[in-house]
């Protein structure tokens, strides 16, 4: 084999190089699967591309043995591949359990060290039903697809030059998957229709003098989990005269609600209508790992008929500079008798 051929083979040729690549791959996967950092602010695709690069290096270094179904494999290769799958299967369970542990532990660490973020969101307390976020999905797919290759890369020893097979030029085509991945991400964000999200089980209800209250949470997913999620979390009360927002002092209470509280004259309304982030929060539960979310605003107005119009606006962009920005608007309209006229 010529030096030129060897150079084209792989940059992770020796066992130790392969093992370093395996550790790096697992570390990047762990970062994706944990809550640290809480958001990639649109840069998660860079992490995914780094992961894909490591994957290609490892697949090439192992001769794509884990994905080879040809019957031309010799006995040693077949045994190695099948053993890697067996260990990989066992490790898959452990890896998923560890990933779950990491997710919960990092969420607790975040909450314990910093408390809820400024907008009221906590990693374990999302009020919208994201189920599996995009970064988690990537981590899971990475583990499922790559674990056998990681096993082979880890256990296979260094082989003498003469035992190595001929270089496989077709594996160089794998590098095309990097631009393909980036292109697919752009396409999904450009073409995939926006989706709604259901509320999770983490919502809260409260009461208000002379009024009935209900919590509304929902959101809009841009880019099918590989873009961003804009959310709406608001507590709405209605008393027959007005529907109004509770827990956000920037949205004033109507006179009918203030009168029902029967406040002593020296007590300002703000002492009662104070921020309650678990009830109403602007921008909580926004997910912006794969796309940037900016200019989030929340506004609530009560019209002459006592109907509440609550609107969340945000700008989502995938590319730096916001050249592809998309405006997302979520509207909630509740009548003074509690009827929901519009909701996301």
């Amino acid at each position, binding site marked *: 084999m010529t030096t030129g051929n060897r150079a084209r083979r792989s940059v992770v040729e020796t066992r130790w190089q392969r093992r370093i690549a395996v550790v790096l791959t697992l570390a990047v996967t762990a970062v994706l699967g944990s809550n640290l950092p809480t958001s990639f602010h649109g840069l998660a695709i860079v992490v995914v591309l780094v992961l894909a690069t490591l994957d290609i290096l490892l697949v090439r270094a192992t001769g794509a043995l884990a994905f080879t179904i040809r019957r031309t494999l010799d006995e040693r290769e077949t045994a190695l591949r099948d053993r890697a*799958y*067996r260990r990989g299967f*066992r*490790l898959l*369970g452990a890896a998923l359990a560890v990933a*779950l542990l990491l997710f919960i532990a990092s969420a607790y660490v975040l909450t314990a060290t910093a408390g809820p973020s400024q907008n009221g969101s906590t990693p374990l307390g999302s009020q919208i039903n994201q*189920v599996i976020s995009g970064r988690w999905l990537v981590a899971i797919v990475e583990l499922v697809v790559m674990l056998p290759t990681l096993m082979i890369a880890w256990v296979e020893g260094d082989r003498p030059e003469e035992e190595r097979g001929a270089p496989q030029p077709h594996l160089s085509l794998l590098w095309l998957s990097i631009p393909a991945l980036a292109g697919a991400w752009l396409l999904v964000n450009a073409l995939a229709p926006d*989706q709604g999200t259901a509320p999770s089980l983490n919502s809260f209800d409260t009461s208000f003098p002379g009024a009935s209250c209900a919590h509304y949470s929902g959101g809009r997913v841009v880019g099918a989990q590989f873009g961003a999620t804009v959310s709406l979390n608001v507590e709405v009360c209605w008393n027959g005269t007005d529907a109004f927002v509770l827990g956000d002092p920037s949205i004033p209470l109507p006179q009918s609600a203030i009168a029902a509280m029967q406040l002593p004259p020296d007590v300002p309304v703000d002492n009662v209508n104070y921020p309650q982030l678990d009830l109403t929060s602007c921008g909580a539960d926004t997910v912006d790992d794969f796309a940037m979310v900016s200019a989030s605003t929340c506004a609530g107005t009560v019209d002459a008929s006592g109907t509440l119009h609550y609107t969340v606006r945000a700008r989502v962009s995938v590319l730096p500079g916001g050249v592809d920005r998309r405006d997302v608007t979520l509207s909630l309209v509740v009548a003074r008798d509690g009827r929901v006229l519009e909701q996301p």
Partner: protein
Amino acid sequence: MIADPPIRQRRLRRPAFTATRVTLAILVGLLTLTILPFGGMGAWLIGYVFLVLATCVALRNARRQPGSWLGRRVVRRGLVGLIAVTCVVLVATPAPSNTSDTGSTGGGLLLLVVFLVVLNIALGGATQRVAAAPDSSVDERQEAMRNRAHRIAYVVFAVAVGGTAVVADVASQQTRSWLGWSFRGGGLFAFLELLFVLPAMVLAFLEPEFRPSDVREAMEAPRQSTGTRIALTLLTLTVGLPFLMSVLVAVLPPRTATTIQAPSGPLRQQPGAPSATTTCREFFARRDVGYGVQAALQLHAQVCWDGRRAVEDYGMNQSDCHPDGTDLVTVATTQCTRTTDAKGTLAFTYRTSVSSGLTPFLTRQVTLQLVVDRNGNVLQFP
């Protein structure tokens, strides 16, 4: 065909930390942390989880005896089919919620899980648990066979579980809701089943037919060892305990706790409520039925009286007639009434019918009643 694995000459020491053990330890730890806040029920669940684990360990360590009929290919494939169907049904079974219809779903879920445990044990017997056996106790042919089974299982798992999760998570709001809904219910059990048992299922499906000589050897083997007896006892306990606890719901008398005290909060001043010469008391009663498979019903009300009549301050309305907690039981409200008679006596009755999801034909009537006359005399409580 699976024969009794020969003992290798050079015994390798089994590692203390295998991937499966680490996975199980983490999952049991997480489960324990999750259910600990549920108090008594949590303790029951944790105890049951450890019983299941002990049964698994005992079965794993019991002497392997290839059964004559369990080893037949058609039986093994039938078992695999049954497990697959059970997993599909589990995926379609939602999580129990803390409402009055909890029991039907929770009981059905428990029944399916118990059924799955039985099927898994049969599968373990049919394959002699070669899929999870330590390396030192399988021969080269068995090792090659189980490695191949794991490879096939891996692909099946990736497509069936990974593929389903990815598609459901990105396709639409409805599919995403379904995924979350399923994973909080039977889907989680189906996932764990496939994660731990799929290779054995593939192995059972692929293995060729027993040879007559193997069956003869099996029949001539000693029938039972102490380990096998312990394993069978634990297995009987594991399968029978949920049914026993279900029967206890209908058989054992309810446990009742009551408290009567001065009002702990401000009065709500209901329209028509007594005011000037009013006396009030806060009543708290709780009835627990069953252990593990159980329901808790409570009455928390405040009653005021002024010598002319007794009135409810709070806690005696339709919205107050709901169970405080249900675990694997169905609680159906049969009566929820509040009346005040001509003498000013206030009566509140909350009556329910409680039955286990596993034994729905056995029911128990549980009643919470509070009767207070116009002078504050408690005539009935609870």
